[in-house]
């Protein structure tokens, strides 16, 4: 019974964590689109090498840094993680 309750709390915490992460990835994409949309388009037509590196960096940042930021926010809120 106690174990089930704990699992329910952990799943709820995970849902909150995913919600925070979802907001961050959407904001990140909108920022990239607004601030970097034009420069990326220019790079794509003028310098594919820098475009390729920029593309990889952008996707890695969206994957790794936002997850780190989420973990930081979750720990600040004081939620116990499912891990």
């Amino acid at each position: 019974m106690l174990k089930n309750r704990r699992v329910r709390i952990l799943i709820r915490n995970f849902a909150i964590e995913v919600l925070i992460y979802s907001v961050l990835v959407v904001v990140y994409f909108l920022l990239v689109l607004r601030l970097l949309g034009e420069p990326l388009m220019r790079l794509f037509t003028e310098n594919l090498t820098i475009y390729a590196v920029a593309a990889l960096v952008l996707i890695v940042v969206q994957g790794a840094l936002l997850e780190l930021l989420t973990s930081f926010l979750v720990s600040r809120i004081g939620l116990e993680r499912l891990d």
Partner: protein
Amino acid sequence: MHFPISDVTVNPLALAGVGFLVGLLGGMFGVGGGFLAGPLMYLAGVPMNFVVGTDLAHMTGKAIVAARRHRTLGHVDIRLGLLMIVGTIPGVEAGARIIERLEAAGSIDQVVGIAYVVILLAIGGFTCWESMRAMRLVRTERMAARDALAFRGVTHRVHGFGLPPHISLPASGIESISVWVVLGVSFVTGLLAGVLGVGGGFVRMPMMVYLIGVPTHVAVGTDLFEIVISAGFGTLTHALKGNVDILIALVMHTGAAIGAQIGAVSTRFLVGPRIRLFFSILPIVGASLVILSLLGVLGGH
């Protein structure tokens, strides 16, 4: 929404939805999901020349998210992953060269397509049979459910291969195994991936479990770790050829990252045989998509 790099207008929700689906599958089963994402992206309106490169870009981000989550769950064997990359890269290269030679000799699309279908159906069928048998063994012989395996004979023979040097893989619970076995298995999975033109996740994951003897959860996480490097490298090479629309990849990744988190965490609640049973559906779906493609129902393979 208009994407200026590939000059197309695509519904971003459809892209995020495709991302979510393949992210969920990737997090749960350690596959890149290109077999599903490619045709779905094409159907959503992404031009064919951008499909593969853009898919690889979003796959890189998704694999980072899922691999990080699996790592916190203790499901990534970094030593095994790094060693497998050493075998996979020449395998993929050899596979690509075989295809080049065969193409020079004549049209091979149908031959590769049929081989793809046969291999995927064999993997799906075998994994389904084995996982159901393992679940039955858990019930009848009180075997530990988490890592139950109904097919240990080949794994024991593979572990008995004595050619030095040997390494231990504590994260996978393997005391000693010949380095050549790991390199050989990764070379073969790379070769199949290169010949079939897929990332290889649904070949590599069962091979890690059945041949090397890696627990299913660790095989999933380690496969994702390998996908980070292989898909990252693929993104770079495709972007240099102008085949990556990073804005489309970022939209797909908004869905994929969320799906990958959910998929990875859900493995915590599933025992190994059950993960393998659900996984066995994927190669069958992949084979069905290729059959549709060969019949001309979907776009070119």
